[in-house]
Each structure stands twice: as structure tokens, then as C-alpha cells.
């Protein structure tokens, strides 16, 4: 009746544990090499002053890189640009997605077709998205100019992307176009889970369309909205592809976001230490924001 050492081992790591270990192994191998190691190494790099133009000297600076970043005026420019961009993109995407979800929630002929069509922007590669809108915004031959002038809203062809006041918003527009469908679908599914009885009760109580939306639909959507907001924020904050294709940080520093700064510092100025430090700051910001959202909405993701 006494346990042998093999038995004691089995009590700790029985059939279940062994199976789980085997099943998870592939994932961990892949992630270890391709993700975890670079993450740690990247943090390690951020603690050194590494500039590739003088690779022989790489002094340890602790958090010196981080300090330098905070003192760099371009950093704050980047923060401002990123903030504006993210706020605009996330808020408009979410509101837009909400309306689309409301529409798709109704039953009408052709709804299935519309739902499928919605996926078009989601499936579009970001590169194509960028070039597509860049072409539409073209100051010489673009569609936007063409339409506006034909309608009469505009006198003559103007510059869109190249106008520093408008740059961020034009890029945001492209991003919103691509991201809205997924957000709409996520919200739609949450909507479908709302029990019919709640609407019936509200109608009996005398609520009209808007009141039903405000008191029944919206509260029930909290978890869905939170998911959408967190996800959208996470990806908007680190958008890079569009910026590379459309404006490359310009004109001037009109679209100089944090992601762009990371790219410039790492690959053009070759300051790897600074680049790594910036990346970690961005990661922390994303983390904190997500946490705040989740706490703010009071439900688990």
C-alpha cells in the first residue's frame, strides 16, 4: 500500500500532465525561439547604447536610453501624432462598426450577401489598402479630387496626403475602412445574444426605438465593445505598413508616429538601443491602456 518513488511521481505528474506536456511542446518550441528569445534579447538591447555605425563600442547605459528618449522632442511629437491617430481611428471605427452591426442585425433580403461583402476590406492586404487609397488621394489624378470637383464641393484638385493638416486623417480613413468590418462582426455577435424578451419588456414599458437602444442594446454590448476597443487600440497604436506605403512619416513630421520613429531610429539611424527602448515603451503603453479599458468596463476579456 505504500507508494514507490514511481508512484509518487505519478501523483505529481500523471497521465494528464504528461499528455498535456506533449501536446503543448510544439507551441513552446516555436514560441521560445521566434518570440520569447527576441523579446528578452530586445529588452537586453534597450539597456545598451548600441549604434551600428560604431559597433565596437557598446556601453551599458541601464535606463539611459529611456531617459534620452523622454528628453527627445521628436519623441513627444511622435506621442502626439500616435495619440491623435489612435483616438481618431479607434473611436470612428467603433461608432461606425456599431451602426453597421445595428443594420446587419435587422432581417432583410440580401442581408447574407451584405454580411459576406463586408469582409472585403478585412481581406485586403494592408499594402494594397495603402496603395489603393494613395491612388484615390492622388493630387493629380485621384478619385477623391475627381468626385469632389464634379459634385462641386471643391474648386480644384487639392493635395490630400501631402497636406500636413490632413495627413493623419487621410491615413486614418484607410485604416478605418479596413478595420471596421471585423469590429462590426464582433459587435453583431454580441447583439445577437441579447434575449428578445428584454426588447419586448421595454416596448411594453413604453420605450421608443432610441430608448430601447440606449437601455437594452448598449448595456448588453459592454463586453463586446470592450473587446473591440482593446483590440482596435492595440493594433492602431502600432500601425506601420500604411505609414510606410503612404507617407513615410511625412510630410515633415505630420505622420511621425511612434512606430515610425522606431523604424527610423532602428533602421535608418541604426541606433538599436534607442529603437529597442522605444519599442518597450510602446508595449507598456499598449498594456496599460488595455488594462485600463478592461477595468473600466468591469468585465473579463
Amino acid at each position, binding site marked *: 500500500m505504500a507508494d514507490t518513488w514511481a508512484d509518487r511521481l505519478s*501523483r505529481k505528474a*500523471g*497521465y494528464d500532465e504528461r499528455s498535456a506536456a506533449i501536446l503543448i511542446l510544439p507551441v513552446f518550441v516555436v514560441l521560445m525561439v521566434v518570440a520569447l528569445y527576441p523579446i528578452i534579447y530586445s529588452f537586453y538591447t534597450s539597456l545598451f547604447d548600441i549604434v551600428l555605425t560604431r559597433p565596437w563600442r557598446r556601453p551599458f547605459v541601464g535606463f539611459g536610453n529611456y531617459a534620452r528618449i523622454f528628453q527627445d522632442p521628436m519623441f513627444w511629437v511622435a506621442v502626439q501624432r500616435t495619440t491623435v491617430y489612435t483616438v481618431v481611428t479607434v473611436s470612428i471605427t467603433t461608432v461606425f462598426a456599431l451602426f453597421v452591426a445595428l443594420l446587419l442585425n435587422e432581417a432583410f433580403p440580401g442581408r447574407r450577401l451584405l454580411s459576406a461583402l463586408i469582409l472585403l476590406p478585412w481581406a485586403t492586404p494592408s499594402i494594397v489598402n495603402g496603395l489603393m487609397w494613395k491612388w484615390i488621394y492622388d493630387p493629380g489624378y485621384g478619385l477623391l479630387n475627381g468626385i469632389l470637383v464634379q459634385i462641386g464641393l471643391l474648386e480644384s484638385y487639392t493635395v490630400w496626403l501631402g497636406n500636413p493638416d490632413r495627413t493623419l486623417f487621410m491615413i486614418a480613413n484607410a485604416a478605418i475602412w479596413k478595420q471596421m468590418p471585423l469590429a462590426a462582426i464582433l459587435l453583431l455577435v454580441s447583439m445577437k445574444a441579447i434575449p428578445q424578451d428584454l426588447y419586448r419588456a421595454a416596448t411594453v414599458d413604453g420605450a421608443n426605438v432610441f430608448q430601447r437602444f440606449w437601455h437594452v442594446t448598449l448595456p448588453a454590448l459592454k463586453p463586446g465593445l470592450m473587446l473591440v476597443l482593446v483590440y482596435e487600440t492595440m493594433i492602431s497604436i502600432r500601425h506601420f505598413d500604411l505609414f510606410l506605403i503612404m507617407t513615410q512619416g511625412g510630410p515633415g513630421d505630420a505622420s511621425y508616429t511612434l512606430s515610425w520613429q522606431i523604424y527610423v531610429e532602428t533602421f535608418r539611424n541604426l541606433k538599436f538601443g534607442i529603437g529597442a527602448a522605444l519599442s518597450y515603451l510602446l508595449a507598456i503603453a499598449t498594456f496599460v491602456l488595455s488594462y485600463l479599458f478592461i477595468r473600466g468596463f468591469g468585465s473579463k476579456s
Partner: protein
Amino acid sequence: MARIRLDGITKRYGSVTALQRLDLDIRDREFMVFLGPSGCGKTTTLNIIAGLEEISDGDIWFDDRRVTFIPPHQREIAMVFQSYALYPQKSVYENIAFGLRLRKVDEATIDAKVRAAASQLEIEHLLDRKPQQLSGGQRQRVALGRALVRQPTVFLMDEPLSNLDAALRVSMRALIKKLHIAMGTTFVYVTHDQAEALTLADRITVMRDGVVQQLDTPDAIYNRPANRFVAGFLGSPQMNFVEGEIAEGPDGPAFARGALRIPVDPAVAAGQGGRKVVLGLRAEDAVIAEGGPLKGQVALISPLGSEQHVHVATGDSELVVRAPKDQRVALGETIALAFDPARLHLFDAANDQRLGPQT
């Protein structure tokens, strides 16, 4: 066909201990029922016998084989669930055949066994259907068929009838009992329904908060409950409880509460003067009769068709009594109750234990 022995089983979930040094002996071929309220640990124990939950400490034995570390798919068990748990994408035939296929039994044998089980359960006409197309009772039969067909060492059932309506439950109970006799296998059945337990079991294990309260035949559990909890859990309507103490008197010991005096069995209560006890009396053990020792007023009458339950207020307690449907009783009327003193139960007020001849 196996004797199951649970030896010092302890199950911890983090800081919560669900089972503490549980010892249990299930005889070969018997129909054992685990009975108790939700959360008492009966399903956990069943899962442990199945091997679906790991044990923090202790051992399980099937006959002479120590199965503690053997995973469920090697224990030769069969299991039936409250939710039926039929594979939705498989037909009824495939559902039943699944276990045999896993064991690489040849097609011809599978076909023979599946059809035999189906005919025993009267579901041959359903073999090509999918579970979604069946009613609750039919689904449960399929689940039984799935278990039946493998001739397992142990047949485990986790509240299989709880999702069925009342009439169906009764007929299924009979079916399960017949299966047990036909198969001659050890059955372990979990339920919170005491009527089910009494009908089906060879022996019942009453559990509460992970501790075995009593392990005995239905008759013993019903008529000689080991403690107040068991006494109250079995029997419908619930046993009447009155608190009081033993008073020694010229005619022998008696139960005393206020002015009430009820003589009790001297073999149990002699020399216990002053001891605080709880008196137990089942509703069916009392009769409304002229000149009975217990007097009270009718507070409520609940007609049930086949009988009536009469609530009688006596002193400051209220007792429920079963009366024949024809007996005329009026609200507020003063009536007398008579009973057989041998049918009285006494429990220690402090530890709820039954007062037996030894005390």
C-alpha cells in the same frame, strides 16, 4: 464485475478539501447509490472511480488491481450522464458502436452487439437517427446502450434521470434495475433524489460535505438513520423533529418538552436524564386517533389526492402527519395523535448522532 475499494481518498482543489480520507467498499455486483445534496462530493467520488479526476492522496482498487494511476480509458468503465452526452455528429448506431471501434473489435461483432443492445432497450428503430432527433427518454436509452454494449467492469451513472419528466423517470428506473439484474455488473449510481435511491439501491452511501454519513441497506438507512441529517434527508414529507430532553420518570425515561411527555424506549434512553435530544417522528408513523398521547390543533391541510398531509401545532412545534384521504379533519380542530413508540427516533442534540443501545 468488480469489487471497488476506496482507500483513504483525499481530493483537494487548491485550498478547498472536497474529500477527506474517504474509505468505501463497494461489493462485487452490487447496486450502490451515492446519495446527498449538491456539493456533497458524490459526483467527485464518481469521477474519481472513473479516473476522470486525479486523487490528491489515497488509492483505488478494482478487485486486486490498483488502478489509482490508470487513466479512465484503460479502466474498462462505462458511464451515463445527466445530459446524455451523445456524440452529436454520429448516428445512434455509431454512438453505441464507438467504444467497440476504439477497441478495434471487428465489424461483424460490433454489428451483432449493437443490435442486441438496441433491441434490449427497444431502440432498434432509431439506429439511423441523429441524437438531435430523439426525445429525452430515447436519448438516455441510447446512452445506456452505449454503456451496455461494452460489458464493462463497472457501470457508473451520474444523475441520469434528473432531466426526464416524472412519469418517464419511473419507467426508466425500472429499466435500469432490470439491466442491473441482467448484466450482473457492479453499478455505482449518483443522485440527490432519495426516492430513486431507495428504489434502486442494494446499499446506499449517504454523503454530506465530503464525508460519509451512513453506508447501509435502504431499509436500515430509512428505519435506523445514523444521524439527524440522514433521517431528515430520506422520507417525504421530511421527518418531524422536536427538540427537548430526556426526563427520568416513575414509568421510565421520557422525552420532555415543556409540558409534553412522551415515553421512549428504555434500552436507549435509560439513565440519560437531562440529556438534550431531538425527537424524530416520520409523518407516516403517526395516526390521528382519539385518545392519543399527543394533542394539538390543525394548522394546515394539504390534500394530495391519494392522501393528505395534516400540519398539527402542538405546544410550540409543528408536526406533519399523513392521513388517509377520507379522514375528516377541519382547520383549527383539536386532534390527538397516536404512534408506535418503537418508531420514535432519538438524536443527541449536540452531535446529531442517533441514540443507540450502546449509549
